[in-house]
């Protein structure tokens, strides 16, 4: 590639005036060395996106098929590996679907411990997302601050469960580890610290020019569209729908804990930022309440390995939205069928709707906004059908393009950075190409 992104942008805009024809942009083919790969075929009119066709499944691992040949207990820890960010909620949801088939009840203390971990996971996931938003919008200071604060909650999770991400702490009708003693004061103090930080970040995103310019009025959709497309979680709440499983169909200890469900009405990416930071504060309150009111008693009921025949479904509120598990047993040691549906699958149609009408420069911000479980920004290839011109951008270059588009005054400094990144990328590419 010889031209700078800016020259290309000029040419692309010139193209808009000369040709009204549509061009096809294949977005994000795959490479094993890159981040989670997904593929979108974008139809552009000049710089405006008019249609998007998704192609997912490059990292599909066939967990549902694998579950049919594994014992019930083993599946719990396999489904926990569905996601590397919100792992615990998967084992809770799968566990609930199976627990309902047995006649055993989960002890109250275990429900509270589950709630504490679930909400800590939400705080950790939302902080991760706010940081990534800062990164893709061109505000890396925010990214570094937020990820530093994320360590606070990860340390707490590690102190309780022994692990940072894959806790492997859940069990059927209970949890495997009790809360450590004398943690209460430490957790409450840390939650207060995180609440203060979240308030501060809220102030930043409302006043800082970079974030305002990149997120306000970007990715607008109406509440009616969102409802029709069956979006879940923050993607439904940011247009004012009160769709939250914790409120509608309480599980774990949510029926006993006062919960503040946040909804907003802006319906743009900035509203999503506000919503997730407010939710973070609400989650911190839930954790503090649960820790202070933790009931005494057993933490687990042991159940036999054979699950009675029957079918049941369960849904839970993961940080990204509702997850759904369906379990069918024929009375054996292995399940007859397990179905799991993740929130990104439910939110994808809405994300495609959000992309329509946006420019090329908004792709990173809009796709990050749904908090996708794929980091798919790497490698884009462009093809203009009229001029037969082809070019390829890596995710980093696309990010630079977006930043330069909105903040041309930063162009010179950023341009040299993009150049070095490009050199590095081509070096890696050559290394892969040379391999037999």
């Amino acid at each position, binding site marked *: 590639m010889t031209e700078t992104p800016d020259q290309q942008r000029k040419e692309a805009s010139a193209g808009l005036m000369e040709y009204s024809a549509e061009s096809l942009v294949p977005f994000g083919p795959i490479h094993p060395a890159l981040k989670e790969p997904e593929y979108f075929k974008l139809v552009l009119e000049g710089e405006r996106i008019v249609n998007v*066709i998704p192609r997912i499944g490059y990292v599909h691992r066939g967990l549902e098929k694998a579950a049919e040949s594994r014992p019930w207990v083993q599946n719990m820890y396999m489904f926990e590996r569905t996601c590397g960010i919100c792992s615990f909620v998967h084992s809770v949801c799968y566990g609930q679907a199976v627990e309902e088939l047995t006649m055993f009840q989960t002890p109250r203390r275990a429900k509270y411990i589950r709630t504490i971990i679930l909400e800590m996971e939400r705080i950790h996931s939302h902080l991760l997302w706010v940081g990534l938003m800062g990164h893709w919008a061109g505000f890396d200071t925010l990214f570094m601050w937020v990820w530093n604060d994320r360590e606070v909650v990860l340390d707490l999770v590690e102190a309780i469960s022994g692990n940072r991400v894959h806790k492997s702490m859940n069990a059927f009708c209970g949890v495997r580890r009790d809360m450590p003693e004398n943690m209460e004061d430490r957790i409450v103090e840390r939650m207060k610290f995180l609440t203060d930080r979240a308030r501060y970040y809220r102030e930043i995103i409302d006043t800082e020019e970079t974030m305002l310019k990149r997120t306000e009025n970007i990715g607008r959709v109406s509440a009616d569209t969102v*409802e029709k497309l069956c979006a879940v979680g923050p993607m439904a709440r940011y247009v004012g729908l009160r769709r939250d499983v914790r409120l509608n169909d309480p599980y774990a200890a949510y029926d006993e804990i006062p919960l503040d469900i946040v909804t907003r009405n802006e319906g743009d990416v900035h509203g999503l930022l506000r919503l997730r930071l407010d939710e973070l504060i609400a989650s911190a309150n839930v954790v503090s309440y649960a820790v202070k009111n933790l009931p005494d008693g057993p933490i687990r009921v042991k159940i036999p390995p054979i699950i009675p025949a029957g079918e049941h479904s369960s849904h839970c509120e993961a940080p990204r939205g509702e997850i759904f598990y369906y379990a069918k047993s024929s009375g054996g040691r292995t399940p007859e069928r397990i179905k799991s549906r993740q929130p990104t699958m439910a939110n994808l*149609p809405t994300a495609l709707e959000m992309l329509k009408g946006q420019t090329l420069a908004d792709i990173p911000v809009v796709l990050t906004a749904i908090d996708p479980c794929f980091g798919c920004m790497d490698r884009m290839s462009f093809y203009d059908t009229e001029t037969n011109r082809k070019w390829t951008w890596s995710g980093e270059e696309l990010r630079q393009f977006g930043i330069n588009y909105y903040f041309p005054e930063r162009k010179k400094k950023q341009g040299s950075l993009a150049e070095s990144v490009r050199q590095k990328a081509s070096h890696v590419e050559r290394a892969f190409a040379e391999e037999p």
Partner: protein
Amino acid sequence: MSETVTRFGSYAEEVGTKLTPLRKNESIVEIPQDKLKALISHLVNDLHVRHLMTITGLDLGQNLAITYHFSMEQDTIHVRTFVPKTEPVALSIVDIVPGAILYEMELHDMFGIEFVGNPWKDRKLLLPEEWPDDLPPPLLKSSKADQIRKRLGLEAAKK
């Protein structure tokens, strides 16, 4: 059981089927293919149960079951329909619930069910492009993981 579910139950009886409670807040209705769209249309448009959680496929031997999971506040309603395995063709509900589009594509990939009326029904969503046509869809009971691995040339990767 809320009022909406009771009303839905009486409508189900009108069209000649029955809403069976599974447990608290959860009920299931089984309906043949030809009456499915009318039932779902009543549920979505008249009763405003608009949130489709997902669609599940089940291999029952002779037939395939398609279950639509709807949720409204605390209630979950499962609508189940059947298609024969020899001719797996079902009607798409994308015109009633636009959010069903990806779930139907997923079922097409995993169970080989064709959804008439889905605009993207011939596209692959999850399976690789080079998936052999003569191999049974992966989530059918007749499909074995070893067989898939062998045909896709993944044996070496496993070792």
